Structure formats: C-alpha cells, structure tokens
C-alpha cells in the first residue's frame, strides 16, 4: 500500500467520523419542519449532509424512541408515508446541541 493511499484512506475515515458526529444534529435541525423519510434524505443531501438509508431510518427510530421525534403514518399523494417531526423535548435538545456546536466551533477557531 502506498503512502498516498494510506493518507487518503486515513483522511476518509476521519472525515466520516467527523460527519457522523454531526448527523444527529443535522437530522434534528432538518426536522423542525415535518418531513417523511425520503424528503428528509433529499433535504440533507441538498445541504451537503448526504446520509444513506441504512443509517437514516434506524437513527430516526432511535431518536423517536428517545422521545426527540414524533411520527405518524399519513396518506399523501394516495400513498401512506411516515412523517417525522421534532417533539417538544427534541426542540429543547436541539437548542442545547446547537449551543454546544457553536461553542465547539468557537474553540476550534481559536485553535486553528
């Protein structure tokens, strides 16, 4: 294996790790407005936070079981879709997480 391949693999792993840490924040922020899974995925992708289905749907279920999201099955365009939205607790947590994120950003700016 060449040094270049090592470097790019290492960068990719660290990049994924960094983004993974921000996914919950991104999903919670995107769900201030009610959306169903597919449109949520598109919204995140458009904002440069692409997330694969195998990660998104289990994450949505986990956040819902933690009480941060609420969901309901509803018919739209003659099809049943599951719509997700932030719960009251989710809104409060999102606010706190955003504060934390700002603080991390501030700290990093001071360091780099």
């Amino acid at each position, binding site marked *: 294996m060449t040094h270049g391949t090592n470097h790019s693999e290492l960068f990719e792993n660290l990049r994924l790790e960094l983004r993974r840490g921000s996914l919950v924040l991104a999903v919670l922020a995107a769900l201030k407005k009610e959306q*169903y*899974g*597919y449109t949520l*995925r*598109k919204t995140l992708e458009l904002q440069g936070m692409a997330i*694969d*289905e*195998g*990660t998104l*749907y*289990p994450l949505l*279920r*986990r956040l819902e079981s933690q009480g941060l999201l609420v969901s309901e*099955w509803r018919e739209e365009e003659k*099809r*049943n*879709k*599951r719509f997700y939205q932030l719960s009251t607790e989710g809104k409060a947590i999102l606010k706190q997480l955003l504060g934390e994120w700002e603080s991390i950003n501030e700290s990093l700016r001071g360091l780099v």
Partner: protein
Amino acid sequence: MAQELLDRYLKNVAKVLPEAQREDILQELREDIRSEVEDKERELGRTLSEAEQMAVLKQRGNPFALAARYRQDDRSVAFGKRLIGPVLFPFYVKVLSFNLGLTAVVLGTIFLALGLSGQNVSSGSMLSTSLLQLLIQFGIVTFIFTLVERQSAKNPDKWDLSGTGGGLRFKKIDMSVDPTPMPRISRLESVSIIIACTVALIWLTGVRSYPFLILGPAAAFLKLAPIWYHVYVPIVLLTVAEIARATINLVKPDWVLFRQVYGLFVHAGGLLLVYYLIRAGVWVAAEQAGDYARGVSITNQLIYYGLLVTGALSGAMLLVRLMRVIRGAKGGAGGVGGAGRQVMPRAR
C-alpha cells in the same frame, strides 16, 4: 420498479428485522425505494432499466446488513474480536439450537434409560458427558460460522437477488398490485444446512470410532448393535446428498422444484433407513453378554418407540412434501430455472 425484485429484497431484509417492528420498517423502506425510483424516472423522463433498478437496491447494501442496523441489541459472538456479526447471528442461533437440541434429546434418552434400569451413573459423569458433547457441537458450529463470517466480511458488496450471478430476469410491473414473487431458496438457509450437515457428518464419523460420543457414560457397559454399522454408509451418503443439494441451491437459489423433487428422494431414503432400523429390533447390546440385561432392554424399548414416532412423523411429512410437489407441478410454480413467475403489466 419490478415488484418481484423489491419483494425479494424486502423479504431478505425481513428475515433479520426485529419482529415487533418488522411490518412498520418494511412499509417505510418500500415507500423510500418507490419514492427514489419515481424521482429518478421523473428526472430521466423514462422508466429505469433493470440494471438501474438493481443499482437502487444495491446502493442500500446487503439486505441482511441493512436489517441488522435496525437491531438495537447488536447481537454477535465475540472472543476478543468479533467472530460472528449481527447478520449471521440469527442463522447461527438456529443451527446451534438444532444441533444442541438433537444432542440433548439423544443424551436425555440414554440417561433416562439408565435411570429406569437402575444403573448407577453418577451425576458428575452425566454432567461431564453432556458438557463435552455440547462443547464439541458448539465449537464446530461456531468455527464454521466464523469462517463464513470472515469470508462474507471480505466481500460485503458481493450479493445479488437472482442467485445467478446478477442475471436478473424480471419484467416491469406495477408496484401497487400484489403479484406473487418468484420463489427462491435463501442462500443463508442453504449455508445453514451445509453447516448443520457437515457438523452431523463429523459427529457421525466420530461416533463410529468413539461410541462414547453418543452413549455417554453408558459406553462403559453398552455398545451399538450391528445394525448401526450396516446403516452407517447409507446415513453418510444421505447427509452428503443433502450437502450436495444445499450447495447446488446455494448457486441456483431459483431451483425450487429441484429441491422439492430431490428432497423427496432423500426423504424417502431416510424413511427407508428408519424402516430397516425398526426391523432390526435391537439397537444397543451389553459390552459383556448377559450383563445389564434390564438396562439394555429399556434402552432398546425407548429407541423402538423413538423410531416409531420418527417413522410416523417422517412418513406424514413425506406425504405433505409429495402433495406440495404435485400441486406445484399442476400450478407450474417454482420450477427449475424459475418457471411460473407471475407478473403484471406496469401502470403509470
């Protein structure tokens, strides 16, 4: 998108999903895939080709791996590093339960016979025999599944839904209708059968030389009757035949009729063996003639009833299988190479 292809993908996902949420998750996944396909078709102004439809599913990854991500329990086997991951774990448990269950029944019968005949076998001896047997089974099954896990981890993207190396042959159909998906034999089911039969084969080979493996502590004063040595080769051949069948279905999962017809012959062969065994009348004998007459008699009686029940159940199952094959042949469903698939015209 082809309903058949989507159904097959979701059917595989369903196998590993937690039961309580299964329907809910499948409905959501189905909706997501449909939305994506429609989106792409709108963008391109045409229907997606077969390869493009498959690419949509491929992007989601191996269906078992996808389903495993919904399992919050993350069940796996690890000894330091992970040996068997959450994808194979449910199948590992199934094979292990079957093998350990069978061993427990055999040991239970022996101990019961010993107890009823008044033989003095210490609880320590019973415990150590049982533990040894169960450990051997556990070790072999775990080892084989570890090898399978390592192999599949090397090629996480090497999967398809056709069983014929990516040669998909489906027609465009409406997703809002409910056609019957083409029957397929799950590859993991085939792998599980190969593993279970290989373990059985190793065990059978061992039992021939070391009757202790089946008789436990009773091997000190009991021995297997000659009939077992007469049927040994046919039993091995039937086990090998089943391994061969599962290997063929691993490569050709759409050969459903092949499995059904082949299975009939193997099943009939098994029934014939049971018949010969019942006819033998004696299945265990005393190491020293004249000794332990009561123990030998009770053990033989228990084996006789066990064989009778096995024969009756096996005969009934053979009839059911035969009727299934006849019904399948009449309906033309599930033939070699996948005859009898039902498709509906696409409505847009």
